[in-house]
Structures are given as C-alpha cells and as structure tokens.
C-alpha cells in the first residue's frame, strides 16, 4: 500500500489542472514532507487553492499523478480510505459551515460524519470550543458569527477527527491579530500532540509563512521555488520573505514594484470634518454592537479601523453608508446627518463590503459597467473609466471572466474597483485587502495614498494587517463595540511600549478582555490519550447518514415557517382545491331565439330555463345577436326554434331545433351537450305522453345505471382522494428539491467531497426528515378528508398509509434528483414545478382517467407515480379495497424507489470536477 516513502505526506508528479480554457496548474512536481508545516505562498490566482483542493480530494485529478498518504488519489477506493485521515478547510470565511445551525451543532455534524460516538463527540467538541474561545458562543447560529470566529469554527470542524494531514486554505484571512496568534498556538499545540501530522497551509501573511518549516512559492500555476524559509532567503539574498518572494518572481511580474512611500498629509484647518460620529450606538435586540463610539475624520484623511472580529467595525460602517440606522447618537457625512434616501449623498460614497457582493453572473467588465451606469457616469466616460480601473487594479486579463471563477484576491480588487468607479469623495472599505497578496496590497495602498493625498478623498478603512494600519493617518482600535484606543499609529505603539503595532494591538485587546490567554498545552492534553476511533463501516454507516438527517432536520427546525407551510399549507390547498374542482356545472347562461313564438315553443324553452343547470338570458333577436353575444361569452348555449315549429309538429312533419354551444371551453361545452340532450329527451317523452298517452312512452327495456363507489356522483368523493396524492407529490418534492442545490450554491457541498460520508448516506440522510414531514402532512390530510370533507375511508387504512409512505419516498426522491441536476436554486424550483405539478395534474388521472390519455403523455401517465397512488387512494377511500386488490399499483411504486435513489447516487458527484 505504501508506494511513497514514509516521510512523504503527499507527492505530486506532473500535476496539471484546467478550468475550461484556463490553465490553473501546470506540471507541478512536489513532495510534501510529513511532520511539518508546509506553506504555499504566492499571489492571488496562481493555483494555490486548486492545488490544495486536489490534495484534499475535493477536486478530481485531471493530469499527472497524485499520491496522498501512501495511495493514488485518482482511485475512489483510496480516497474513501484516506479521507478520514485528511482534514480540509476551504477558503472563504467558513464556507463549508451551515449558517442556521449553531456553533455546537456544526461541529457535532462533522463529528458524526467521522464516526465518533456521543460521549467522545461531546468531549472533543467541548475541548475544541474551549481552546478556540468559542465555548461561550456554542449556541449562537453560525450566520451571526464574525469572519474570524467562523474561521476558528472551521478549524474546529476540521480538527474533530484527528487528521494526519491538515489542509488549510488561507485560514487566517480576515482574522484579527489576537485570534491569529491563538489560531497558530492551537495548531502548534495539536502538532505537538500528534507527531507525524502534516499541515499544508496557503497563506497571504508572509510573517506567518516565515514561521513554517517548508515553503512552496508559486506563480502562474507553477512552482517557483521550494525550501525552508532560510533557504529561500539565502537563495535570493533578501532579508524578508516579502522581498524574497518578489525576487523570485519573473522579471515582468516584478516590474513596477517598489517600496511604498507615504507623503505626509498637509492638514489644512479649513478642511472641515467629513465623517463624524458622536456617541454612536447600535443595538440589535439586547445586544449592543456599537457602544458610544466617537470619531471625527477630516477631508483627505486615511482613517484605520482595527479590532478583533465581531467588535462592531462592520456595523459602524453600515451606519455610515446608511444601511443601518443608529439606535442612539448620531453620524454625519459632509456635515449633514445621514439620510438614507438622499441619492445625492450616496453618489459621493464608495462602499466595499466585507463579503463579496458583486454579481457573480456578470463578467468583470459587465460589473464595472453596471456600476458606472448606476452612478450616472456620462456614457462617453464609461468605457475609458473601465479601462482605467482595469489598469489600476490589474484586472485587464480577467475582464471577461466571471467573478465566481476568480480567486479571492482578484475578486477583492474588483470590489474595490467597483467602489471607486465613480470617483467618490469618501471611501468606506471593510477589510478590502483580506486575502490579497502582498504585492497587490502594496499596489492597492499606493492607490489609496494617491487618492488621499492628491485628490482629497477621505478613506475609512478596516484591516487586520498591521503594516497597513501603520500607513493610516490615524487608527482606532475597537473591541466589543467600544473604542479601546485611538490616535496616530506610532503613538499607539509607543503608548504601550510595544515593539510592533501588532504587539500593541494584542496588548490592548488582552487588557480589554481582562483574562490571560488560555494555555492550550493543558486544555488539549486529553487529545493525546484519545484512542484512535475505529474506522466505521465504509460501505454504509447509519451514523453518518443520521449526521446528515440531523443537520437537515435542524435546518428545518430553525425555519419553522417552512415546515409549517408544508403541513398547514397542504391542508389549506386541500380545502381550496377540494371544494374548487367541482365538476358539476350549474348556472350556465342560455338564451333563446324563438322564431315560432307559440305555446309549444315557449314550453320547450321553459323546459330548459326551468332546469337548475341553466339560467335564462334575455331572448335573442336574430342570428347576428346570437353571434355577438356568444362571441362576448355572455351565453354558453343558444336555442333556435324555427318558424312554424308548432304547426309542423302538429302535422307530424319533421322539425329541427338547433342548439348552439360555446365550444371555447370543451369541458364546459360537453356538459352543456349532455344537459341539453337530457332535457330534450325528457321533453320528447313528456310530449309523447301528452299526445299518445302513457303506453306510447313505455320503453322496450330498462337501463339501470349504477354509479358505483360514489353513488351520489359527488365531486368531493372523487376529488379528495385524488388531491392527497397531488399534494404529497408537490410539497415534499419542493421541500427536498433545494436541499442539494442549496449546498452547491452556498458552498457547503465540499463537505460531501472531503468527508467519509458516501453518496448514498448523503442522499438518504437528507431524505429522511422530508419523508417524516410529508407523513405528518399525510396524517393531517387524512383526518381532514374524513372529518372535514366527510369522505369515508372504506378500505384499508394500513394499505393507504403504506402507499403514502412509499409515495412520499418517491416524491422526496424526485426532489433530490432534480436538486442534483440543477445548478441554481431558481432552476431547481422551476424544474420541480415543471416535473411534479404539471404531470400530476395532467397525467396523473386526477381529472381525466389515464386510460383516456393520448400520445407521449399517456406513456408518462402510465409510469408517473401519482397515477398509481391515485389508484391506491381512490381504491382505499371509495372502493373498500385491501392491499391484495391494489398490489399491481404498489409494484411500480416499489420499483421507483430504488430507481430514483440509484439515479441520485449515480449522478451525484463525490468530487468537484
């Protein structure tokens, strides 16, 4: 099994990767040593993330060979064998976490996937949360955590199963200095406890990389150099890694890079304050996010906003942009209180939010153009301005790419370009350089400095990079919604006697928190003693399946509206549709064109107007009147009685009465035909009786019509048992239809790729809660049908219930299958409506019997599951049938269950491709 030498964690030979036409990785040959921290460094978009995703098994290998932990990653068997030993934390602030679940529930979910028992899970979770300082937030939904806390939680989830290979993709991007120190402290501690564990990290922080054992410098999909940090430094004859990296770059990439020079700001007293906050306070419920914050920023100043994650920086910025209203205190821009509706002010502000918020469906160029238009740039200015921004932010090569396909750093540059496209007077930038590589960051600051010094743009910027904070004219450090310290960066550093601003930052934060840093040595010691978990059954593990069941159920629980809609909604629809689809047509409008005007003709018309089916309209004048009124839809039936009707009849001559029917709606017209013929026949008999006496109408035979199962031919009795299948198809399918595509759209699908969960466990696990909800809604509908609609259940309840169980398994399975195929949630919703609603109503035998259907639809009707469950429902409700009578309807349903699940497993991908 062990083809690679023991001290190699991963071995790449000639590995290449393409996304469409773009080549992300080219001929990578590398060996990652075990028992060490390996850093991947390099600018954005050079293939670091792709490389990590390949090693983690999250992405399918295209070219070359890849051996990880002694086996070939191209083999699915090996992947499933080693994936419990690999932990992968993808890029992007906890993208693989579930927002509605709490911190504890997220970790617990991962622990289940890796097969720990309950006690062990709880012990490990408690420990990890303790170490990461998340313990006090254990019950907080992840959606409400700040970026840094999400990163820490992501690490907890990655570490839950004692991996041998830990793969971290920019784990500290967007994390404040204190948390970053704690984070690396944790990693060191874990490594100390788990000798032999390898860690591969992609990072944008060179100071972090300097502490790693071994580095790989990458550029443009290739490896530039690798070796220990010292080797790299000595090879390039440079002092710092930043410099070393720049020296390693090819000539053209290096061009134009030079040290950053910040001209001193010339403060002019006449420059008023552009941004002001006075006792600014924002509360969410009883949580105070921003607590009496004061600041005054002059025109052209660069104001740095620092602080731990979740300290209220973003909230403050949202107030300044008008997205939030302060609970107390005030904020002013340009000396005016902020008015959200003032479009004029909005045009003077450029805002870049922390999370990427541009349109991923528009190309880079289209995004820029859209924003240029929104900010009312003159049409002639738009194209040159876009070119200008593209040059400034080095976006020229990606102008026609979609942002989703770009690495984080380039997306950040795009966001910034968008925020600046309209030459704003104020720039409000929320961590604009998170995930941006050092060279790009310097270039970026050059722009900011130019804007500030030469164009008088006021810049309000938050950052976690202390070297950036040093470049600000003034900086403010926040924690827990309060300002800890504010002033010129150098003064802040000296104020606490620290050697670097980083240390000063940590010093102030620790002061504020008021407790010593945890000593991870102690808290994690028990991990050492933890026995290695026995590998759970590889083929099928109920525990992993229930892991997903629990997750899905929790999500449903957190969204009670959805579950309630599913259950109450089905009852509501049942009422509306049950009473609404009534096939007894009454009150049809008719008018007569009576050319005869005799007692006999009036008698004939009275027959029709006297029946409860028709209501008589004013008589018709002539054929044109008939035509006009029928065209307007005023009458459904016109009766024309010819002149001489009565006299001809009396002489025994043949007479013709014409009935004109509005055929626009055939189903109504057919009913009209039936009624008219019935009335006509009755009139004939009555007339014959009057003319020839009773004997004349005596028939030669009798036709006895027995309306079976529904003797009164009530629409309700026919429809209610058919509506239950209809709703049990629609609603469960719609519930399940979003569950997979949603994970794809929001990014958590990566958990399927890199954890031991199998596709079958994943699908069945997700399906179970929906089956349960569907069965509850079935029970409610059954009660409604019997007690509210008064439709008796004459057959076997057990058979009906069994049928319902099989049927909802199918409908949820169909929803999941659609979900697997679709790329977006919109498509999934639309697709589900098309695949369930229309066929169920049209082909399911609810209105027209399947045996009368035609063409392709008839074939669909024969195999569509609703058809068979309609038969079962009508059979058990109205026909007093038992299981044996309905076995032929159960068979196709029972076949459909494994077929749908099988197709789901077949089409679901266990790797990104």
């Amino acid at each position, binding site marked *: 099994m062990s083809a690679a030498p023991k001290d190699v964690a991963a071995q790449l030979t000639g590995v290449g990767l393409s996304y469409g036409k773009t080549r992300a990785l080219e001929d990578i040959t590398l060996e990652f040593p075990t028992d060490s921290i390996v850093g991947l460094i390099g600018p954005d978009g050079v293939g670091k993330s792709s490389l990590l995703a390949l090693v983690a098994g999250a992405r399918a290998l295209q070219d070359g060979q890849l051996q990880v932990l002694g086996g070939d990653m191209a083999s699915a068997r090996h992947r499933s064998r080693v994936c419990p030993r690999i932990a992968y934390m993808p890029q992007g602030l906890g993208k693989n976490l579930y927002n509605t679940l709490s911190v504890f529930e997220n970790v617990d979910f991962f622990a289940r996937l890796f097969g720990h028992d309950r006690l062990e899970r709880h012990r490990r979770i408690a420990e990890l949360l303790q170490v990461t300082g998340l313990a006090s937030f254990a019950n907080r939904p992840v959606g409400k955590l700040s970026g840094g806390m999400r990163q820490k939680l992501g690490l907890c989830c990655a570490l839950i199963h004692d991996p041998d290979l830990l793969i971290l993709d920019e784990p500290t991007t967007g994390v404040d200095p204190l948390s970053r120190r704690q984070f690396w402290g944790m990693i060191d501690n874990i490594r100390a406890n788990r000798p032999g564990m390898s860690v591969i990290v992609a990072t944008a922080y060179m100071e972090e990389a300097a502490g790693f054992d071994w580095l790989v410098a990458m550029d443009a999909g290739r490896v530039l150099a690798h070796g220990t940090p010292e080797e790299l430094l000595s090879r390039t004859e440079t002092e710092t890694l930043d410099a070393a990296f720049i020296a390693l770059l090819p000539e053209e990439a290096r061009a134009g890079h030079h040290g950053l020079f910040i001209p001193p700001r010339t403060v002019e007293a006449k420059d008023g304050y552009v941004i002001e906050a006075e006792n600014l306070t924002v509360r969410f419920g009883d949580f105070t996010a921003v607590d009496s914050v004061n600041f005054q920023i002059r025109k052209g100043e660069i104001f740095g906003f620092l602080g731990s994650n979740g300290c209220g920086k973003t909230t403050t910025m949202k107030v300044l942009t008008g*997205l939030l209203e302060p609970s107390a205190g005030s904020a002013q821009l340009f000396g005016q209180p902020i008015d959200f509706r003032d479009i004029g002010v*909005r045009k003077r502000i450029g*805002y870049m939010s922390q*999370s990427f918020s*541009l*349109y991923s*469906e*528009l190309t880079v160029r*289209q995004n820029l153009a*859209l924003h240029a*238009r*929104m900010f*009312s740039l003159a049409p002639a200015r738009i194209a040159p301005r876009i070119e200008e921004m593209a040059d400034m932010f080095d976006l020229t090569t990606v102008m026609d790419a979609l942002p989703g396909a770009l690495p984080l750093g380039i997306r950040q540059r795009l966001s910034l370009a968008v925020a600046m496209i309209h030459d704003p007077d104020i720039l409000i930038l929320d961590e604009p350089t998170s995930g941006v590589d050092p060279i790009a960051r310097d270039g970026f600051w050059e722009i900011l400095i130019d804007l500030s010094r030469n164009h008088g743009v006021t810049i309000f910027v938050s950052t976690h990079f202390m070297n950036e904070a040093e470049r600000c004219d003034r900086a403010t450090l926040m924690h827990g919604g309060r300002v800890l310290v504010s002033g010129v960066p150098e003064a802040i550093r000296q104020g606490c006697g620290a050697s670097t601003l980083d240390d000063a930052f940590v010093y102030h934060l620790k002061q504020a928190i008021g407790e010593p840093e945890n000593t991870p040595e102690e808290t994690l010691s028990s991990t050492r003693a933890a026995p290695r978990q026995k590998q759970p059954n590889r083929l099928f593990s109920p525990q992993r399946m229930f892991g997903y069941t629990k997750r899905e159920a929790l999500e449903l629980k957190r*969204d009670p509206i959805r579950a309630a*809609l599913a259950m109450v909604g089905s009852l509501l*629809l049942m009422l509306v*549709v049950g009473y*609404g689809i*009534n*096939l*007894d047509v009454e*009150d049809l409008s008719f008018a007569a064109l009576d050319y005869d005007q005799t007692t006999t003709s009036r008698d004939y018309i009275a027959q029709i107007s006297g029946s409860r089916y028709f209501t008589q309209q004013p008589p018709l004048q002539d054929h044109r009147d008939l035509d006009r009124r029928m*065209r307007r*839809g005023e009458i459904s039936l016109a009766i024309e009685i010819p002149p001489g009707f009565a006299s001809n009849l009396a002489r025994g001559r043949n*007479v*013709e009465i014409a009935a004109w029917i509005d*055929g*626009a709606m055939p189903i109504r017209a057919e009913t009209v035909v039936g009624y008219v013929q019935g009335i*006509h026949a009755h009139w004939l008999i009555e007339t014959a009786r009057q003319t*020839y006496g009773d004997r004349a109408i005596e028939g*030669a*035979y*009798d*036709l*006895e*019509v*027995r309306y079976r199962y*529904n003797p009164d031919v009530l629409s309700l009795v*026919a429809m209610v*048992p058919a509506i239950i299948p209809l709703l049990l198809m629609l*609603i469960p399918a719609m*519930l399940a239809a*979003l569950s997979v595509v949603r994970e794809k759209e*929001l990014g958590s699908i990566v958990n399927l790729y890199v954890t031991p969960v199998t596709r079958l466990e994943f699908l069945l696990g997700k399906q179970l809660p929906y089956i349960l909800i569907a069965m509850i809604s079935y029970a409610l509908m059954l009660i409604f049908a019997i007690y509210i609609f008064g439709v008796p259940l004459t057959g076997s309840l057990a058979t009906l219930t069994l049928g319902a169980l099989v049927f909802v398994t199918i409908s949820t399975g169909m929803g999941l299958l659609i979900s697997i*195929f679709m790329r*977006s*949630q919109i*498509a999934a*919703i639309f697709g*589900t409506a098309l695949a369930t609603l*229309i066929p169920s109503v049209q*082909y399911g035998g609810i209105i027209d*019997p399947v045996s*009368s259907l*035609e*063409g392709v639809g*008839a074939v669909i009707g024969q195999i569509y599951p609703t058809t068979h469950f309609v038969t079962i429902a*009508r*059979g058990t409700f109205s026909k007093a049938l038992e299981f044996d*009578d309905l076995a032929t309807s159960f068979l196709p349903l029972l076949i459909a269950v494994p077929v749908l699940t099988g197709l789901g497993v077949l089409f679901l991908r266990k790797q990104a491709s």
Partner: protein
Amino acid sequence: MNLSNIWALGVKELRGLMRDPVLMVLIFYAFSLSIYTSSKVMPETLNKAAISVVDEDRSQVSRRIADAFYPPYFVPPKLITQPEMDARMDAGIDTFALNIPPNFQRQLLGGHRPVLQLNVDATRITQAFTGAGYIARITDAEISEYLGRHRSQPAIPVNLTLRSRFNPDLNKQWFGAISNVITAITLLSIVLTGAALIREREHGTVEHLLVMPVTSLEIMTSKVWSMALVVLMAAGAAFVVIVQGFLNVPIPGSLPLFLGATVLHLFATTSMGIFLATFAGSMPQFGMLLVMVFLPLQVLSGGLTPRESMPDAIQYIMLAAPDTHFNIIAQAVLFRGAGIDVIWPQMVTLTLIGAVLFWVALRRFRGFLQ
C-alpha cells in the same frame, strides 16, 4: 425614476439569466415540449372511455350492442365475465361496464321489458355523467333499430341539432394548449422575479445595490420589465411555433391583442413574484409559497375546469387572481375572436390587480431591503 438605471439593472437581470444554461433549457422546455405533450395528452372529447361488456345473453342484439362501442369515443369493449367486472372496476381499468343479462333478446322481443345494467365508476367524475349519457343513447339506438324491424312505435318528430361554435369537434387539445401556455407564463414569471430577488439577498448583492444611488422603485421596475420581456417572448414564440404550428390549433382571434393582454398579465404576475419573495425569508420558503399560490391559480382560474362549477365563494376570491381574468381574455380573444370592445373590462381589472400588487410589493420590498 431614472430610466437609465432601470435599463441597466434590467439588462443585468437578463445577463444573469443567460448565465444559467439549465434554467434556459427549462424555460425552453416549459414553452415547447411541456406544452406540446400536455396538450397532446388531452382526450379529444369523450375519448377512449374504457368500457367492458358482460354478455350473458350472447344473442344477436347483445352482440349488436357490444359492437356499437368503437373508437375514438370508446376503447373497443372487452368481453368479460361478471367476477372479472368487479375486479377490473376496482383496479380502475374500466370506467364503464355494461351487463347484458341472460335471455335479454328473448324478453325484449316478448315485450317483458328486460333490464340492462350499466356500472359506472363514479370516481371518474369527468366521464361518469357524459359517458353514461352516450352509452344510454347508443344502446337505445341499437335496440330501437333492432326492434324497428319487428314493431313500430309512434315518435315525436323533433330533432335536436347540436352545433358547437368556435371548436366544432370540442377538441380539448385546443383549449388545453392555451391553458398550458398560460400556466407556463404564470409559473415562469413568478419564479423568475421572486427567486431572483431572493438569490440577490442570499448573495448579499441587494445590500450592495442599496448603497448605490438607485431607488427601490428602480430596482423593482427593472426586474419587472426584464423578466416580463423574457416570458413574453417565450410565450409569443410558443404560440406561433407550438400552438399554431405543431399543434395546429386554429386561432381566429388577434394574436397581437392577446400579447398585449399578456403584458398586463405579466405586470401582475411579476409583481406577485416580488411580493411573494418579500414574504419568504429564504429560497426554500419561497419554494413552499410558490406551491401555495400557484396550485390554486392553476386549478381555480378557469383553465382546468369551468369557473361556473366552482362554489360562489371561490369564484369571488379568484376574481382577485390575475389568472382568472387572463383566462377569460384568452378564451374570448383566441377562440371567439373577440376584440378589445369585449375584453376591456378584464384588461382594466388586470391592470388594477397589477397596480395593487406592484404597489404592495414595492412597499414590502423597501422594508425587505432594510
């Protein structure tokens, strides 16, 4: 209102749509194959009603009766036995079973008034009544003709000639095709606007829009026009290519007038999509809401069963639904060839419904954004 913003944002919506090929395929499917198959499936009048005959007489007259049922109105009847009859009806194979008792012919000729028994599966409401009527007339005609050779009976010489206007054969496919297009129009316009709005919020792009100098009215109007345009084009193409072309439905009315009414309808349904999206917190909730709203729209707007047959309360409630009026317009314009003089009340109502929905949606949309 800045028209340039509305234009630019609308173009953005259209580009976003192009980026989802699966969705494009679904739209294509909804307006082509889906309409075609689900229209073709409709039985033309009382079509292929499943009938079996239990012939216990095996006489000349009983054979005559059995042979009188033939396609397209009936499937060729199966000759079955009494026990088979119950089983087949239980399984839903037969809708009708005609039982001709032993010695039927002899008793008939002897004037003893024998009894024919017709069993009807009354859970098949659509066929039960009309079918029973047909069968009664067919047996009557056969028996009368058979007896006509044996004895004569006085009769009233009045014939009822039935003529069906606008759709002489009462071909359900014509009607089905139109109501399928309407279904697709409503479904797609609600989904596209509503789900697109929720996606923007889930991806944080709405927040971004808000700090820009655009008003919520502009954002909403851009969504309405762009998505309505997509659906309008799809619907227009579906009419010409699928309904008139492949399905061969003769449309005597004015297609431009109908498309004009479609614009009004789309104004209402796209606003409704946004309205629903402001209620739904997330895409899964929107999916549920869509079912809640769309099913009644489809079933109760008069496109599936006649409005006259619905309880009064439902008829009144459904007057608030744009689909009801749109269905009335479609039937009037497309089949009866009615002009604007006939459908203007519906057009005014549609505009009103659209305006109210748009206004309410706009108000909620502002709240939804903050």
